[in-house]
């Protein structure tokens, strides 16, 4: 019978090993006791796609159940037709992207002339940013150009990014930036 790798481990761990072993033609007892020691035994499995190059390899992330819900393992998805469980160094290290002490975990602001970042709240940061967007947009908005043609744009604000975002975020970013009147809208695809 054709069984993929994850089913195989679940079968053996689940205790039906003795029965299945006959069909699989091998003694699963040593496998079962090994599987019981795997830290991913009780983890939640989530399907994801690698965030690096554009091959789009399948990755399985294992998250611990219970408090914290931390990613405890990532590995190639053997069911994915492109990578069939293989990963390059970057994809294989994905757990270090999620669990990393250098992750920025709070909004920060650097005020004019200052040499350090300061932590601020989301509420404060978003309100301050929105004020500045409005001020700059209002000051630089051009309804008609020098030829008298309707342009309804601002060249005083620019945006770059990002090919690292989900499609649904990408669409919304271009919609929001265009609704605010930007024409300088670019990202990784250009370079």
């Amino acid at each position, binding site marked *: 019978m054709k069984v993929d790798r994850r089913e195989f481990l679940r079968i053996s761990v689940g205790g039906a090993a003795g029965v299945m072993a006959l069909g699989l033609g091998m003694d699963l007892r040593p496998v079962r006791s090994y599987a019981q020691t795997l830290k991913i035994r009780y983890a939640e499995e989530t399907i994801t796609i690698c965030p690096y190059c554009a091959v789009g390899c399948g990755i399985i992330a294992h998250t611990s159940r219970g408090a914290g819900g931390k990613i405890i393992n990532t590995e190639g998805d053997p069911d994915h*037709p492109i990578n069939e469980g293989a990963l390059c160094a970057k994809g294989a290290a994905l757990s270090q992207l999620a669990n990393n002490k250098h992750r920025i975990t709070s909004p*920060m602001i650097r005020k004019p002339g200052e040499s350090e970042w300061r932590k601020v709240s989301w509420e404060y940061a978003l309100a301050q940013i929105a004020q*500045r*967007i409005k001020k700059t947009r209002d000051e630089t908005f051009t309804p008609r150009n020098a030829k008298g043609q309707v342009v309804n744009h601002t060249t005083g604000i620019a945006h770059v990014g990002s090919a690292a975002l989900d499609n*649904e975020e990408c669409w919304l970013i271009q919609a929001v930036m265009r609704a605010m*009147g930007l024409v300088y809208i670019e990202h990784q695809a250009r370079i």
Partner: protein
Amino acid sequence: MTNHWIDIRNSDCILIMGSNAAENHPISFKWVTEAMKRGATMISVDPRFTRTSSKADFYTSLRSGTDIAFLGGMIKYILENNKYFKEYVAEYTNASFILSGAYSFHDGLFAGYDSKTRTYDKSMWAFEKDDKGTPKKDRSLQDPMCVFQQLKRHYSRYDPDTVSAITGTPKEDLLKVYEMYSATGEKGKAGTIMYAMGWTQHTVGVQNIRTMAIIQLLLGNMGVAGGGVNALRGESNVQGSTDHCILFHIWPGYLKTPMASQDSLTAYNAKWTPKTSDPLSANWWGNYPKYSVSLLKSFFGDKATRENDFGYNWLPKLDDGKAYSWLDLFDAMYRGEIKGFFAWGQNPACSGAHSNKTREGLAKLDWMVNVNIFDNETGSFWKGPGMDPKKIKTEVFFLPCAVSVEKEGSITNSGRWMQWRYKAAEPPGEARPDGDILIDLFKQVRYFYTRDIEDGKEPVFPEPILNLKLDYTTNRRFDPHKMAKEINGYFLKGATVNGTSFKKGDLVPSFAYLQDDGSTSSGNWLYCNSYTSKGNMAARRMREKAGIGLNLEWAWCWPVNRRIIYNRASVDRYGNPWDREHPVIRWDGSRWVGDVPDGGWPPMLRPDGTPNPETKYPFIMKPEGLARIFGPGMVDGPFPEHYEPLECPVEKNLLSSQLINPAAQTYGTDVDVYRTCDPRYPFVATTYRVCEHWQTGVMTRWQPWLLEAQPQLFVEMSAELASLRGIKNGEKVTVESARGKVEAVAIVTHRFKPFKIQDTVVHQVGLPWHYGWVYPKDGGDSANLLTPSTGDPNTGIPETKAFMVNVRKISRR
């Protein structure tokens, strides 16, 4: 990619050029290896012997920036040795089209060049038309003014001796590559090209790809399994972000951003909707207004009505003749014209060409919003090398965001496969998914405009901000499913289309059902069919059991799940596959079976050999219906022509008096310096990547496993160059260009060898661009401190793959 990753296994000959796929798209190599196991040959052409080269059946080198010379020689070889697929060329391409008497090419310039503006009048490249307006054709390909004969004439100048003197490639190597690859011109054989930034990042980037597209058309490799033009795209979702058009010049689905001269929706649609008088041409872009109106309905929902031109004037227009591309953006920023800036999931202080110009530009902003996962050289530019924070007034907001596994949504790979992925964990601390940040930020902006109105103040053009459709939340969080459905599109009222009835609120099954009257919405017509009454097609996970690897039920791809595009060129005019072992589609007498056909129209000939008037030509996105060997839409010429990179090591172009691309862009601020043939910068430099790091390293430099494997900036050079400069392997050296300098560890290797160019020895070096001053300390800074602010005139992509540098020991006195 016109094809897709797994399809590479179907190839007979794989040319990897302008790419180091084994290094930078590592898992793609699984399919290259599979193809080779099945008997395919693989050729690697690269200035440097790379990991890809180490697996090749044949490797040869060429100097960075000379790919058109190399490939132009292959076109000459294919034509002179009759290696081209005659029936395919005559029936499926514009090789038979007759050019008007205005067309000419002489000494590096095409007809219509204006040296003052450095632009071409493309009307000189038009075809002769019959009285119906359809291009005249000579299917025997003999007419001296037909494209085929002009192609022959153009590339007759690319003889192997000249090509060898330009590229530095030994003549016998050129002929070997030409012979190996052109064998795929045989019916039933397929050759594919895997290329990436090595081809695109040049002032002739687009023409590099055009040259290969011409080769693929001559050999009949488009639309077939194991063939195609396979661009290896360079980010997990750069395909998706490009499709959704976070780019100044296009709207989602590759519609055009309106220009000021298109003062109404009618004028705009008229300008961009191509027409054809040939009943055999499907001219699919003729449906343009259906896609643009549906898009406007997705932008503004019910607020977009026929009376207000569906909100057309609420969206910003470009000034005619002006570009707002990456290099233009940072040029404007450097000149102090930009006040506010979003660096959202990108690190331009390290990724943009001429990083010093970018960094100094950032210092002139009033404010910046930096959305990212880790600290980076862009958000923290004010404390970078050479910066005095006390003098920099830029206010910077850092907003921490989630990584891929901390949110749900889809990304589109290079093979156009849209794949859904799920949330595995919460983001750490107060970090939030970008969708949530975006919605909350925009709602704040909207609130301030609403408050203006409530306070009786005159708000500045608030309509687009107030009217933008924004109902993509569930429990106040961004809901990717709601957004994905809007991108697919809805019926906004009951309708019967193509014989099927729909209710208001039904998801549109595919773009064939979209309307131009405001009765449908679709955020991106190309993605219409991705989320329908059948469900979230991007989330499907059914693997193919047997076949050529199409995997039609795994995820979803655009357009309409067609896995190999242009596939109606994979069959003869009766609908029989050229390659019976790897058929993509096949006419079974009443319909096509296999992949989603590139249009359901019947084959061009009936079984009795008479033409079928119900048919359409196979290249449905071109107004003529046929593939373009002659490309009259390019800014710098209808046939690719070799020009030197803007900074080059030679004084003469052996092929003409035009040293550089006559249409190439340059910039004029005090820091835009270019030095060609300058003894102070005698070596050709290129930039590249390593497997362990990603782009500017903003994600990967912080990961211990990856950093341990590749800890710091290096410059790779030949043993000969090292000896010339007295440099030992492992010692730190300075690499400098006219624009900046970096310190790097010298890697002395046999992977680079000096080139013999026009009887001179030319050395080339290479650097990875993964590093930045933020972290790790002494890891090195960005290689883009060296690269020039010049780019391709069609796309604006910077020329970061060929420029001139000096390399010298660091003197310790």
